């Protein structure tokens, strides 16, 4: 099995490492922050992050340095950094580990990002369920404040940065960056339409950067070891660095695996993950969290980088890889995910709100043996009417399980419908409402 150098998980994989400030410093922690404050201008930090090719790990994969560059330099009022620690995408659990096991790595990344964009305040928006993670972060912030890394005059310079933990209260949509901002402002977590973008009109309508936990954790390493080093890892030029893939489902060794981008799904699932948990072969997998379209065993050799996965008709998303063995009903799998999307649609846009409940009801009916001819065409049509017609990307996400399972496992749907047809003749037609 190939061995890859770990970057983000390195510390925590050392036995006994608990992520205290002391331990973190011993492994070279906060050197990057010192270096930045001492030697680099904000513009130079942004330049380095640009050159590293780092792209967002939260789902959309937007180049981080470019995002930082959009923040107006000479804006008179405050600016903000928001760390997106909402991690609610089904199949994703990397940020949780990064926060609970090595909180200072994240804090250092946050502080450098704040310095780069000129934000005196950062909020870590962590999902409400992660009580433990929040406590660990709070403690780490106190430690860092005590050591002079956080506060009004960091390490004796005139740079002042405050970091606060802000707990959510149970809403997947608050991971969407503008919904996160609304929620942080104390409102319902409804996404805002864009433009304007957060970079100019974000938190409290002030320039704001929203970055995922993993994204920010990469930053100290880029500063320490150089943009070129980072850019050489993975599949340059578009997918640089490592990624933590969250492996779940029917595999032997589920968990977080950090590998350079560009490793294949086969390697992740069958080597790192130890292969399928039983003798049943692989039937299909989700490559990037619940929002990513399903792929099939035919796609095992696709490289796990942004472009390759996109070419295969799906996306790398949040890095959650969920494996399903033969015998798993894909109709059921789509139904389970649709329940999630129905439950989490914020309700702002008509197509997403109404579509999710309609699609869910059709899937439930098909699964319960009430499928009818025409259902599949209707499903596809409804999905198309949602895709691209909503305020946020949730609308696109919610149709992907349905469309992709329909694409690869249509026969399973058809079988259920045929079976239903066969029994229905005795039970009579389900009434149809007409206007």
């Amino acid at each position, binding site marked *: 099995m190939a061995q890859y150098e770990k970057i983000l998980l390195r510390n*925590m*994989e050392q*036995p006994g*490492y*608990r*992520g205290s400030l002391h331990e973190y410093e011993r492994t070279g922690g906060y050197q990057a922050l010192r270096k930045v404050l001492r030697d680099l201008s904000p513009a130079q930090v942004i330049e380095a992050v640009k050159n590293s090719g780092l792209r967002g790990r939260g789902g959309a994969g937007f180049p981080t340095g470019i995002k930082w560059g959009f923040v107006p330099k000479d804006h008179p009022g*405050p600016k903000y950094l928001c760390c997106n620690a909402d*991690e*609610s*995408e*089904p*199949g*994703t*659990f990397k*940020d*949780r*580990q990064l926060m*609970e*096991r090595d909180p200072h790595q994240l804090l250092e990344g946050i502080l450098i990002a704040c310095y780069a964009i000129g934000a005196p305040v950062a909020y870590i928006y962590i*999902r*409400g*369920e*992660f*009580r*433990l*993670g929040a406590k660990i972060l709070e403690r780490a912030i106190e430690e860092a404040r005590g050591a002079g890394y956080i506060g009004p005059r960091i390490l004796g310079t005139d740079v002042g940065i405050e970091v*606060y933990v*802000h*707990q*959510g*209260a*149970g*809403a*997947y949509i608050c991971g969407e960056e503008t919904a996160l901002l609304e*929620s*942080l*402002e*104390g*409102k*319902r*977590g409804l996404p805002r339409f864009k433009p304007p973008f957060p970079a100019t009109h974000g938190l*409290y309508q002030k320039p704001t950067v929203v970055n995922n936990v993993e994204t920010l954790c990469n930053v100290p390493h880029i500063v320490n070891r150089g943009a070129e080093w980072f850019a050489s890892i993975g599949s340059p030029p578009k997918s640089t660095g490592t990624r933590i893939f*969250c*492996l*779940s*489902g*029917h595999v032997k060794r*589920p968990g*977080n695996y950090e590998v350079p981008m560009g490793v294949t799904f086969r390697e992740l699932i069958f080597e790192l993950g130890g292969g399928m948990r039983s003798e049943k072969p692989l039937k299909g997998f989700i490559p990037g969290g*619940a929002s990513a379209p399903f792929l099939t065993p035919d796609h095992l050799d696709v490289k796990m980088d942004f472009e390759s996965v996109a070419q295969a008709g799906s996306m790398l998303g949040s890095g*959650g890889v*969920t494996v399903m063995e033969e015998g*798993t009903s894909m109709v059921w*799998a789509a139904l*389970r*995910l649709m*329940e*999630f999307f129905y*439950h*989490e649609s914020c309700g702002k846009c008509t197509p997403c709100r109404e579509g999710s409940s309609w699609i869910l009801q059709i899937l439930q009916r098909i699964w319960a043996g009430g499928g009818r001819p025409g259902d599949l065409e209707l499903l596809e049509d409804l999905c198309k009417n949602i895709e691209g017609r909503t305020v946020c990307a949730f609308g696109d996400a919610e149709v992907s399980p349905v469309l992709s399972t329909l694409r690869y496992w249509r026969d399973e749907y058809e079988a259920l419908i045929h079976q239903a047809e066969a029994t229905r003749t005795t039970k009579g037609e389900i009434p149809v409402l007409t206007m």
Partner: protein
Amino acid sequence: MLREKHHQYIAAILKRYPVKRSAMLPLLNLAQREEGYVSEAAMKEIAAILDLTPSQVYETATFYTMLNLKPIGTFHIQVCKSLMCALVGADELIHWLEDHLGIKVGETTSDNLFTLSVVECLGSCATGPMMQVNDDYYERLDRQKVTQILDDLRRNGTSPLKSGPFMCPEPVPPSS
């Protein structure tokens, strides 16, 4: 009531934000920790603290599923039923719990000790099936563990089986 009891905490929270309303979720979470749910009185009080109308607090509270607007049991058991956990036995877990507690999902035991809910993904997909009880996660559950956890909770209010800082897979111990 909140104001009297948590005066300092509230003042500290308010200091974190340039706009008062941002303290909404921290205060709603506080209210829930205090009473187990967010009462009408608490919403009114939060409105007064934040200079909002009670409706503004209410509309926000109803958006977030962790906030209970009605009283619930002492221990709120929330089982993740999303696909990833379902692939490794979330549905069985729910049955065990229903069996053991003698209630259905959405109900509270008659001694007001346990409320059973199912929820969507809690970020434990590699360590399912799992449940959250109040602030704590319990992962990689099997029937025996569940029985023990519930007994512990009944007896001691807490259980040593709860998860610590999360890491999966566990680091390989140094080869001896």
